[in-house]
């Protein structure tokens, strides 16, 4: 259960693009063809390893419906990463990306890593959005891009892990203030202890609080 870092993610995008299925595939390694509409927000978690370090991902899967938009906005601020999902078989979900992105940029902290995901890549015959279009959108807005299939699990693991890698790199570069939990990043218990011994007397107090 011990982890070096804890990252908070949110999953956003239009209703029915497969956000909950992506989460289920990532946390439970299974696919549920019929899924109820997400009400508000649902939670899932999993441990991953990056660079030999245990990293805990806490993921909030938001409702895509417009009526929940004001609720889901409350989750942007505290997240370190966001998976912005569209459905490659529905062009309208791709067209709405700009709105989602504006919303995310407006309410999140500026360092939030956003991964653009074109889901349902298994439905090639019904494809409406070309892979190149997704890539172009991502390039234009400085996002990472991937096409996934929650059904076949293709790239699902990679999507979550690559986002974590990006965050991890930003931490290494010192872009993220890891002591501010509002950024959606938390240092693990033992790590906090070693950090505080390094920083000296003042940090000792923090370690005391963090350990218990």
């Amino acid at each position, binding site marked *: 259960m011990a982890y070096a870092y804890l990252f908070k993610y949110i999953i956003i995008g239009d209703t029915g693009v497969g956000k909950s299925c992506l989460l289920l595939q990532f946390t439970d390694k299974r696919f549920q063809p019929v899924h109820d509409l997400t009400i508000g*927000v649902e*939670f899932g978690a999993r441990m991953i390893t990056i660079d030999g370090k245990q990293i805990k991902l806490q993921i*909030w899967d938001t409702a895509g419906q417009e009526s929940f938009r*004001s609720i889901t906005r409350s989750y942007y601020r505290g997240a370190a990463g966001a998976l912005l999902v569209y459905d490659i078989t529905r062009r309208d979900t791709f067209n709405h990306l700009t709105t989602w992105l504006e919303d995310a940029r407006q309410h999140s902290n500026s360092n939030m890593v956003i991964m653009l995901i074109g889901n349902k890549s298994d439905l090639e015959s019904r494809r409406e959005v070309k892979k190149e279009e997704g890539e172009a959108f991502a390039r234009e807005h400085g996002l990472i891009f991937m096409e996934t299939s929650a059904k076949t699990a293709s790239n699902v693991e990679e999507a979550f892990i690559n986002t974590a890698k990006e965050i991890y790199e930003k931490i290494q570069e010192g872009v993220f203030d890891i002591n501010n*939990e509002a950024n959606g990043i938390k240092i693990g218990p033992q790590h906090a202890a070693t950090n505080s011994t390094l920083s000296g007397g003042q940090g000792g107090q923090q370690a005391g609080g963090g350990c218990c």
Partner: protein
Amino acid sequence: MGGQSAGTQPSGVETIQKLCDRVASSTLLEDRRDAVRALKSLSKKYRMEVGSQAMEHLVRILQSDRSDSEILGYALDTLYNIICNEEEEEQDDGQRRQEDDVGVQFADKFIQDQENVTLLLSLLEEFDFHVRWPGVKLLTALLKCQCAQVQGIILISPMGVSRLMDLLADSREVIRNDGLLLLQQLTKGNAAIQKIVAFENAFERLLDIITEEGTSDGGIVVEDCLLLLLNLLKNNSSNQNFFKEGSFIQRMKQWFQLGEESGGGWSAQKVTNLHLMLQLVRVMVSPVNSPGATASCQKSMFQCGLLQQLCTILMATGVPADILTETINTVSEVIRGSQVNQDYFASVNAPSNPPRPAIVVLLMSMVNERQPFVLRCAVLYCFQCFLYKNHKGQAEIVSTLLPSTIDAQSISAGQLLCGGLFSADSLSNWCASVALAHALHDNSNQKEQLLRVQLATSLGKPPISLLQQCTNILSQGSKVQTRVGLLMLLCTWISNCPIAVTHFLHNQENVPFLTAQISENLGEDERLVQGLCALLLGICIYYNDNSLENYTKEKLKQLIEKRIGKENFVEKLGFITKHELYSRAAQKPQPTFSTPEHMLFDHEFTKLVKELEGVITKAVHKSSEEEKKEEEVKKTLEQHDSIVTQYKELIREQDAQITELKEQVSALVCQKEQMDNTITQQQSQIQQHKDQYNILKLKLGKDGAVSQADVQVNGVQLEELTALRLELEELRTQHTLLQTQLTEKDTLINSLKAEAAQSAERPAPASENTELLKEVESLRVQVQSQQDEISQLQSERQELQRRTQTVSGSSSDGESAKLRELEKRLTTQTTETHRLQEELRTHSESRTQLEKELAAANSTVVILQTEKTKLQQEVGESKKEQDDLLMLLADQDQKILFLKQKLKDLGEPIEDEDDLDARDQSDEEDDDEEEEDDE
């Protein structure tokens, strides 16, 4: 002053009106501030008046006087006073309700404009204590009055909930504590807000505060934190999952590390805190949660030692009964249905001498009349949870009653249960019956085992079976509670167990007793017993294997029809589910009863009733004819079965044959595969050979091409040749240039001649002039010859070029030789030109008049010279390249020889194949012919 003495009421209204006017119209901040302060002081006494007249003005102050924290504070306080319902003063209910209505009315008025709530939220960002604190209180009061509406507004205002979460980080304790109360109201019954609050790290913050405040020893702040936690977790599976995943269960463990305390060390606050802490544990493992979620929480509670800690409290001394009861309930739910936790619980011993299992100690309390009722219920619940889906535990409990394993030395669970079953206390009877029934649920093995149990009665009499004893007590007509308990035990026992049914029917008195009970017209109290008796009789029919002559299914049904009547029987059966307490018990597993008398139904038993009621009704209603029909159907089915068996046999035989054939086929397939493999291998070998030949052939083709100096095959050589051609082209143009220059010179000389002729008329230099003329003439001849040579060269070069294009090995040699010759001639030409120039110069020296013209000619010749030098160099270069080319040709010649040798070594058949291939490709035809020629 006079107005005031006349009566307070009108004066109050007037004063308030005046103050409102001042607030509205005064331009001076001080004035407004004083007025709002005065309104605040009047707001409690004249709540109604201030509320109805001043609210708009106060809201305007909040909007416009943002810069002055003092006036904001007064305004917020005033609003708080008119909206909040004071709880301190004791009033009679009527007045209280009226006051509540006033608060709700004003809250309504305030939130009518959503902007007001948004405004209040933004004021909470103000750090100033005078603003923030009353702001928090006002918002709390609004939430208390109009919870859902205010929640809705906060939820949709951007970052609304997050901002309120920041209150927990305020260093001023008053604000943090009131923030807790605010969040309690905010999270009430709103899952969306609960989740956002959890997302904003509420669990961490709250657990930190609880630790800082001294956990259960902490004051009311700990209680507030716990209440908020309960709000966040209760019925919110998403937050529960987050709580578990965030490893917060592990942090709960320390709450239950209670120091060694003296008997009186339990303050009321501590009891409250611990009670809430236990409730929080129960929320995480509640039987109403999804089984998967509960199971994983149970697992981590065992892994982190929380269960162990709770069991320590269970066995500790001096724990208040209230806490002990709740701890038992908590342990129950932590172990319910979890094999690992149940096993651990079975191994827990009480610190007594000798040590006794905790289960035994708890059961002792259950069958002890002096223990509190709720505690006894809790123990029963604990025992049920211990046996829930626990076949191992069930076997252990039953085995303590079996003759072979009975241990006379110590008290066993079985002994305690039997003691309870037959004690004089009906509550003990009921509890023991239900507990024993739980040892039999879904476990036909233990149902049979329990039939073996014999009880020793008074001395001299033979032992009596447990089943017999139960029916005996039943027939003795004891209290309803006792009989209900025993009937539930019997129903559970014999259902789905034909042997037990036979045992039960074997006692001749049982069936008459049951029919008598059901058929009698008894009072209200006895209806439930009648219903249960009907159920028991029904089970005897439904699970009857017809092994007893007198009590076959058929005979029992006839009995019902004769003695009770089918309709009557079914109606009596229905009494069970129609009982008012039945549905309550069906709701949840925990036995909770308002009074001991209400303790009648067990949760698991209600499930059994639901299952059996329908099938028994059907079984009883079925007529004997129908039964016969069924029998016939069964017979035909059996006939069919025999036919089917024959066919099955046939199929089996065929199956065997098929298997045999299949094996053969697979063996053949195997062989075929092997053959295929060898074929493929051989094919690939052939292919390899072919490839090798092709490679060699290709190499040969290249070499052949080069051997003829056919540069087309070799790209590099082609390039070189092109370069050469270009150079030749250049040379040609330069020659043309040279020619034209020479023509110019000719004309120049001609003009000079004319001048010389003119000058010849003068006497002195005439002889010289003729000489000069002669020389010029000779020069012209020379130039003419040069020109000829040049044209010859040109033609030669053209020939060379042509030859280069048609290309032949021998011609390249000739070409280079010609080039060399050409070069030589050019050199001679240049030297001759030099000479010519020098001669011209001497002429010009002697003939000053011609000097200028000659100088012009001279410069032209210099240009010509440099150009010639250039030409010479270029020709040299081309010669070099030609040499290189020659070298390369020699090399490749050697290579070809070598390759030819190799080919010869490889043998004749290869050559043939090669030729065949070659004929297909017309491009290569020439090459091949060449090869053949070479050979």
